[in-house]
């Protein structure tokens, strides 16, 4: 049911031309995605997606909308080839997902390799009950280190790009610092 709502919101985002409406709908989309993730038992991921998708992402999109003074874009030219490409890719992928095991059974191969080891040993080895936190910060600590560095790089990248005041096309208003 939630997934059907997600598909409806997505089709509305594709068709809508007003950028402000598209950003509002993307906030709704993030909220629905967080609900679907809760149903999938992914509580940490749902909290992060709700905070990041419906919070920070919407604020940044609205800020960019203000900076570029965009309102809505003109009627797009009819796009037959992209639609054909998208439909062909979609059909190929749907045909491929039929090879996946049915949703939710406990015998799937991914539950047999490393996950049982983490679930059984996380409490003795790290004294932390939340297995996701233990795996994120301890067993797979290198990946989290790389992620913190990515966030840091994005922060300095944006700080460098958007430093100073807005410049006219010939550089009329100079930097304010």
């Amino acid at each position, binding site marked *: 049911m939630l997934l059907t709502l997600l598909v409806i919101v997505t089709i509305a985002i594709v068709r809508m031309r007003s950028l402000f409406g598209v950003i509002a709908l993307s906030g709704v989309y993030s909220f629905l995605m967080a609900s679907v993730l809760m149903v999938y038992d992914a509580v940490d991921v749902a909290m992060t997606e709700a905070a990041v998708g419906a919070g920070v992402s919407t604020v940044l999109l609205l800020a960019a909308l203000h900076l570029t003074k965009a309102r809505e874009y003109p009627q797009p030219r009819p796009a037959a080839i992209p639609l054909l490409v998208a439909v062909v890719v979609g059909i190929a992928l749907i045909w491929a997902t039929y090879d996946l095991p049915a949703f939710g059974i406990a015998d799937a191969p991914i539950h047999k390799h490393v996950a049982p080891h983490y679930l059984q040993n996380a409490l003795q080895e790290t004294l932390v009950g*939340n297995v996701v936190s233990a795996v994120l*910060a301890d067993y797979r600590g290198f990946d989290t280190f790389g992620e913190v560095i990515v966030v840091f790089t994005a*922060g300095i990248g944006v700080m460098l790009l958007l430093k100073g005041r807005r410049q006219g096309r010939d550089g009329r208003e100079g930097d304010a610092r």
Partner: protein
Amino acid sequence: MRLDVVLRVGVKLIIPFMLLFGLYVQLHGDYGPGGGFQAGVIVAGALIVYALIFGLDEAQRVVPRRLVEFLVPLGVLIYAGTGAFALLNGHNFLDYSVLAAHAPAGRERGILLVEAGVLVTVSSTMIALFYAFSERGR
């Protein structure tokens, strides 16, 4: 009477609870859902909503730009420092068992430290992004 009285009063009431909730999510990352990333975004969100309602100058009086620029690399340093401390004591990089006498207690302490580093970097980066976009369009 200004037109945005309801917003101003409501936001003044809700911001302390947002900060408290961010701290709760951070410290309860070991026992329930939570952790550094979620808490960082919630804390940044509290400051962003303050800036949206009361203006960018007020928010920059509370958290100045210099402080944000200082905090962004500090979280990365905390994370790398924990790893380097393990390296200097003869173990592998990011091997937290050296932080205490009993190895699992050391690993729990390492997880807490590392999540604190993540909180500092994520929250200050989100605030820095917001400041960068807002000051450009002033």
